[in-house]
C-alpha cells in the first residue's frame, strides 16, 4: 500500500470501514462533521447502516442497540455532543457491550468554540456518565496514528466488552498527513455468546440490560468490570518516547500538545538541554508504571496540555511527589506554539519548582502575569 494524503476525520471514517464497521450513527457538529459526511456516502455504498440521528442522544442509543447485536458500531462527535452521549455511554458500560466513540474535542465549557482543545480528558478518562465504570481511551497524535488506533479500538472494545473512545482535538481531525490505510477487511460477524440477535430457534433467549436491582448484584458487576480493567491495564498500555534515554527533564503530553512539545524538545536539544518527551497513546489505561520508572531518572516533569491541567493529576499520581511536576497548558481552544514550551523548559532549568509547588497554581500565576 502506498501513502495517501488523508484528512484526520476522513481517515478515521475510512479506517473504521476497513476494520469492519457495520453501522454508524451520528449527528453533525464541528470539527467532527467530516466523519459523518464521509460515512453518509461510504456506508450505503457498501450496504452498511448509516443514520443521521435526531440528536447525539439518539445517535448513542442507536449505537447501544446495534452494539447489543454484536456488530462493529461507532459514533463520533465533538465535546458538546459527547456530553449529550454520556447517558448512553453509561448504559453501554453497564450492559458490557463493545462500542467505539470518537470525540474530536473543541474549546469549552458550554458551546465554547470550535478550535482544537483537550478539555474533555477528565470526562473521557475519569468521568462522563454516571456510575463506576472503566473505559479505554486512545489519544492519537497524527493521522496515521488515528487510523491505526481506530482499527485497534474495535478489537479492544470487543476483547474487553467495553467502550473504547478515541479523543483527538480538532487539529488532528482537520489536518492532512500522508498515511497508509489498512487493507479492507470483510465484515465478519462474530458469534458472541451474549449478543441479542434473535434466537433463530437455536438457543435460549438472551437479555442485555444494565439493571441490577439487588445492590449485591450491582456490586458484583462493578467488581467484574474493574477486574477486567486490571487485564486492560496489564496488557494495553501504549506510549511513545522521544529523546528519553538521557533526559533530565521529561515532558508528558498527548495528542497535539504532545507533538507541539516534540518541536520544543528538538529545539531544546539543539541548545544542549537534556529533555525528552513521553507521549501517552493510551490515556486510559495510563502509562503510570513507565512514569514511575522515569521518576528515578528525571529531576522534573513538565505536563503540557490544551486544558487547565487534567492529565496533570494522573502524572502526579504516578510521580507521587518524588520530583517536581510542573504544568503548562493553553485551554479554551488555543494551540500552544513550540517556543512557549521551550520557554517553560528553560524556566525549569533557571527557576525550578519544588515538590511542594502547586503546579496548577504556579502556572495560573505565570499565565496571569503574562496576560
Amino acid at each position: 500500500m502506498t501513502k495517501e494524503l488523508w484528512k484526520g476525520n476522513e481517515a478515521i471514517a475510512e479506517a473504521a470501514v476497513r476494520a469492519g464497521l457495520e453501522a454508524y450513527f451520528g449527528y453533525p457538529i464541528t470539527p467532527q462533521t467530516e466523519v459523518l459526511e464521509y460515512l453518509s456516502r461510504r456506508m450505503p455504498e457498501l450496504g452498511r447502516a448509516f443514520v443521521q440521528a435526531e440528536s447525539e442522544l439518539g445517535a448513542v442509543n442507536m449505537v447501544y442497540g446495534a452494539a447489543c447485536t454484536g456488530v462493529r458500531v461507532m459514533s463520533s462527535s465533538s465535546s458538546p455532543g459527547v456530553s449529550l452521549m454520556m447517558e448512553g455511554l453509561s448504559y453501554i458500560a453497564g450492559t458490557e457491550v463493545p462500542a467505539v466513540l470518537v470525540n474530536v474535542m473543541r474549546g469549552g465549557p458550554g458551546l465554547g468554540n470550535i478550535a482544537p482543545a483537550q478539555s474533555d480528558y477528565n470526562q473521557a478518562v475519569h468521568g462522563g456518565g454516571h456510575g463506576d465504570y472503566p473505559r479505554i481511551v486512545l489519544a492519537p497524535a497524527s493521522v496515521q496514528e488515528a487510523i491505526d488506533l481506530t482499527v485497534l479500538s474495535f478489537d479492544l472494545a470487543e476483547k474487553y466488552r467495553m467502550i473504547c473512545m478515541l479523543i483527538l482535538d480538532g487539529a488532528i481531525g482537520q489536518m492532512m498527513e500522508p498515511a497508509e490505510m489498512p487493507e479492507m477487511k470483510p465484515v465478519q460477524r462474530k458469534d458472541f455468546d451474549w449478543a441479542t440477535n434473535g434466537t433463530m430457534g437455536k438457543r435460549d433467549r438472551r437479555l442485555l440490560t444494565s439493571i441490577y436491582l439487588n445492590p449485591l448484584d450491582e456490586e458484583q458487576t462493578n467488581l467484574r468490570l474493574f477486574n477486567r480493567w486490571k487485564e486492560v491495564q496489564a496488557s494495553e498500555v501504549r506510549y511513545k518516547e522521544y529523546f528519553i534515554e538521557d533526559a533530565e527533564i521529561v515532558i508528558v503530553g498527548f495528542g497535539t500538545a504532545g507533538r507541539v512539545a516534540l518541536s520544543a524538545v528538538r529545539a531544546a536539544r539543539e541548545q544542549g538541554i537534556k529533555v525528552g518527551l513521553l507521549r501517552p497513546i493510551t490515556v486510559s489505561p495510563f502509562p503510570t508504571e513507565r512514569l514511575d520508572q522515569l521518576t528515578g531518572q528525571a529531576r522534573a516533569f513538565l505536563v503540557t496540555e490544551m486544558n487547565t491541567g487534567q492529565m496533570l493529576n494522573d502524572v502526579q499520581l504516578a510521580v507521587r511527589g518524588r520530583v517536581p511536576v510542573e504544568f503548562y497548558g493553553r485551554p479554551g481552544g488555543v494551540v500552544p506554539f513550540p517556543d512557549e514550551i521551550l520557554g517553560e523548559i528553560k524556566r525549569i532549568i533557571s527557576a525550578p519548582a519544588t515538590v511542594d509547588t502547586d503546579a496548577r497554581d504556579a502556572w495560573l500565576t505565570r499565565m496571569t502575569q503574562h496576560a
Partner: protein
Amino acid sequence: MQKEIIISGFGGQGVLFAGQVVAYAAMDSGKQVTWIPSYGPEMRGGTANCTVVIADHEIGSPLVKNPPFVIALNLPSFDKYEPLMQAGGTLIVNQSMVDHQARRNDIHVLMVPCNEIAEEIGDKKLMNMVSVGALLSGLTEVSLKEVEKALEAHLPARHKHLLPKNYEALKRGFEHAQKEWDKVPA
C-alpha cells in the same frame, strides 16, 4: 530539515488546494508533511489559510508562529503575516490585490501579479498556482517538477484537462518570482 509555509487569502482563492498541492509534492518525494487549514465559520466568506510543514523527520507542531514562507493572496493576509514572518523569510505577495509595499526590510518580499498572470493564461482561477510557482523559486526543498507530478497524480479526473494550464501557471509564477529575486536586497 523543516520548512513551514502559510498560504492565506480570501475563501474561493484556492488557498487550501494550493497548500495541498505543495503537501502532495512533498509527500510524493518522500518527505514528511502536514497540512492544516483554518476551519469553521471563518471559512465562510472570510479569510482562509492553511499551514504546510515539510520535514525529513517526524513533524511536531503542525502550526507555526513565525513562518519562514508565506503566500499572501490578498491585502488582509499581507498585513497579518508580514509582521509575523521569520527574519530572512520569503513572502510572496499577490500584487494584484494589495495597494502598498512591504514595511519590513529583513525579509524577502516577492511581488507577483498573480491575477493578471492567471488571466493572461486564460483562467483567473489559476492565480493560486501562479503563487505556488513563485513560492517554489524560494522553497528549494520542493521542485517545480515534483509539484507538476503531484498535480498530475492527484488532480481529480474531471479536472485533468486543465493540467497544461496549471503547469503554465506554475512556470509563469516561478519565472516572475525569479526576476523579483534579482530586485530583492540580500
